[in-house]
């Protein structure tokens, strides 16, 4: 009975999310008819509330790429992009996006994506973002507005940095949005959206916090990528996003109360054997197979850094409606991708301690320099600081050619046995 209820509960938040995505892509497909302008922008440091305040529709190319990866379409798109001269080493999100565009820009739900009216380049930590929108600019011949977000080189956000970003939003981004939309910014609407974001963020944090319980009722990596779906993508600030997180939180509370493990595609994790911290994005092309390798071993990810690329809410940040420009600036500056290496190490070390982890694992992404550079150093430092065993596996975001199941399984098994041996010693 419990399982049945849990299944139904699981379905509720997942169905909600699925419907939200379907509705959004439908709106995008009909944007012309609906008279809505379209803004392409990136996940880390996105100004979603601002876009919605102008009643424009956001598109996140990375999300399209990962969705294409999960739907086994990315391989063809990447090959298509390579035909146009993009080398093997280029970020596969970029190639997947370019390939998708070249093949008619059919989005993950099967509907055609509209062309952008504006490219809003919120630059947070990933150099490739700049090159990506340069390419899109050539294709779409549309205006670009760049929000330059300084890197946290010293591991902190200074008032000057914050002012620098908020001034750009005020003086460059807002006028650009006003020009393309033909509307003046409605500040009351923006504040409403920001307040809603803050409420959803509270609920998401309660979900992340559940990972501290042993055994954990959540998987903060494989499950986590679903949990971040609405808030990282098009929906932050909207009522349906708030609704989603209320539902999700209730599901997690139910699992806590009933001492249930996280839900995976293979079923509930019955016996938690390993509590892990994971650094780096997952592989999307063999996502389920990858997850199953953890599930089969009873490994649960209790905290991860990838689920913080769109905001470090668990470290206290909340969108604050009372300071709209400053809060948006601080959000952009605080994303995980914008942190310096020592900051990433500190965060992962804190996770290891607070979440009572047995070890940490790095999934190094072949074609993502901004994430992967320095990961071996992160591993060395974490080993020293936490005395926990570190593991290192390699795959890719959406290029199926870079997922070697046998090799990854071999490494994972060795890693789990290493954790066992360390426990026994």
């Amino acid at each position, binding site marked *: 009975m419990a399982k049945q209820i849990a299944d139904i509960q699981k379905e509720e938040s997942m169905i909600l999310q699925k419907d939200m995505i379907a509705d959004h892509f439908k709106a995008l497909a009909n944007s012309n008819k609906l008279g809505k302008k379209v803004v392409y922008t990136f996940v880390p440091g996105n100004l979603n509330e601002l876009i919605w305040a102008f009643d424009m529709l956001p598109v996140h190319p990375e999300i399209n790429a990962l969705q294409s990866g999960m739907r086994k379409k990315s391989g063809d798109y990447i090959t298509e992009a390579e035909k146009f001269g993009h080398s093997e080493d280029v970020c596969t999100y970029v190639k997947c996006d370019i390939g998708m565009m070249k093949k008619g820009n059919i989005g993950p739900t099967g509907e055609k994506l509209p062309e952008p009216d504006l490219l809003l380049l919120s630059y947070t930590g990933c150099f490739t973002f700049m090159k990506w929108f340069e390419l899109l600019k050539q294709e779409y011949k549309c205006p670009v507005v760049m929000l330059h977000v300084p890197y946290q080189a010293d591991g902190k956000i200074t008032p000057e940095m914050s002012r620098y970003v908020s001034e750009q939003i005020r003086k460059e981004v807002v006028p650009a949005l006003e020009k393309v939309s033909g509307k003046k910014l409605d500040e009351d609407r923006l504040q409403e959206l920001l307040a809603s974001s803050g409420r959803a963020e509270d609920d998401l944090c309660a979900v992340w916090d559940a990972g501290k319980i042993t055994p954990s009722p959540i998987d903060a990596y494989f499950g986590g990528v679903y949990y971040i779906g609405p808030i990282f993508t098009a929906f932050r600030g909207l009522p349906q996003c708030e609704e989603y997180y209320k539902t999700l939180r209730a599901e997690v509370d139910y699992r806590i109360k009933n001492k249930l493990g996280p839900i995976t595609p293979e079923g509930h994790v019955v016996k938690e054997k390993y509590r892990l911290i994971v650094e780096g994005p997952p592989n999307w092309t063999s996502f389920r197979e990858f997850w199953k390798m953890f599930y089969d071993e009873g490994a649960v990810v209790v905290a991860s850094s990838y689920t913080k690329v769109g905001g470090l809410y668990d470290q206290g940040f909340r969108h604050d409606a009372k300071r709209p420009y400053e809060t948006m600036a601080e959000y952009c500056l605080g994303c995980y991708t914008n942190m310096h290496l020592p900051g990433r190490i500190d965060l992962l070390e804190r996770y290891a301690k607070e979440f009572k982890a047995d070890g940490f694992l790095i999934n190094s992404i072949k074609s993502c320099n901004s994430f992967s550079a320095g990961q071996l150093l992160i591993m060395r430092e974490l080993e020293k600081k936490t005395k926990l*065993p570190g593991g290192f596996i390699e795959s890719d975001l959406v290029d199926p050619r870079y997922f070697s199941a046998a*090799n990854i399984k*071999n490494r994972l098994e*060795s890693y789990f*046995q290493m954790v066992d*041996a360390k426990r026994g010693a």
Partner: protein
Amino acid sequence: MDCYIGIDLGSTTTKAVYLDAQENIIGRGITNSRSNYDLACQIAREEAEISARFGILKQEILARESSDHSLDVLPWILCKFKLAQHMAQLKSLRHECTTIAERLLTDKKAKYQGALQEIFNRMELEANKLYSPDVSNRSDFFRDLAAVQYINLAEELASKDKDYSFDRLVGIFDSSILKVESQSYAKDFDQYLRFAREEVVKLPEFAKLKTKIETATNKIIDLKFNVINTIGTGYGRQRLPFPKHQIRSEILCHGLGAHAMFPATRTVLDIGGQDTKAIQIDGEGIVTNFQMNDRCAAGCGRYLGYIADEMNMGIQELGPMAMKATTVSKINSTCTVFAGAELRERLSLGERREDILAGLHRAIILRAMSLLARSGGIASEFTFTGGVARNEAAVKALHKLVEENYGKMKINISADSIFTGAVGAALFAKRDTRGDLANVDLGQLRRGAVEE
């Protein structure tokens, strides 16, 4: 006698090791992995058990007779033992060949049957020559030894009498050998050993040792191994018919095995057939970090195999030839697929084979150095394991590159290095108190897969 078994199912060879209760290696067995992992596993284990029995025999003989020449008898017993085993296999091969001929031939059946009898009679007569302490055969495997004899005799017959087709005779052999190879001959250990001792005491120099040899051999015939636990590892470990808790990753096994061989080891490099592993271990032999090649087998043992094929040489001949280099060709790629192209390119440019080979060995080690660096560098002591550790040119390149990058360092290479993974597995078998696969019958396990 209580013992623990470790089996390392590698991509090229399968190794088995027996440990006694004091963790001493008492038996080692190695065989080709072929495409039949289950069989390879069983044969390696049987070989290890035979080697363990002979090890004990040595102690028994020493305990009874401590003169300088007393151990001279051992190689003789072993040779005669192998002869007995060979004769049994030959008998089975004769039976198989005549059965196949009966079934497949449509014409000249009787004539071919006569030829087969002649071939096998002569093979039996000549078998004796293959087994003597002063003969070193090109291979230890029955298939190879029998094939050389059979093919020579078939050729001779076919050239003398036009009624025989050489191809047809070879075809009969090819159809029969696999079945013979797939049988286990270890169950008749007692019979072979009795034959061996009878043969040995016929030799004048050992006649006076007759009673002592009999007592000692009787003791090992009666010896029962009580297998407390078995652990499997290696590239093909998923194919082992063991429950999950009796399978260990080869990374852990190589770490623990290297620790057992050289307790001060902190870094282990293993270059096997399909992968290269850089492993860091602590003072207990527990793995603290590791890196391994991803996806392709560039720079692994298989790469040397391809090079050997390209050069029409035996894999064991590569190292000695590379040692004769006067200069080392600069080669960066270790791609197995491009190995042939790289080689031909160099040869066409007029580079010497020796120098190219030295360059290829250096390239393999360069790749390993990168994995070592990624795993945390090299800490003293450093132990090199796996099949490639037996290659002197690879070892030379390793010494040079380690010194250049990390300074002078103690580098250990055990004579048993190819057994490192199996030793580690056997040690895990001893440490795992759950051992419920005592005296496991692999054949039976194969028939009904064991579920945890």
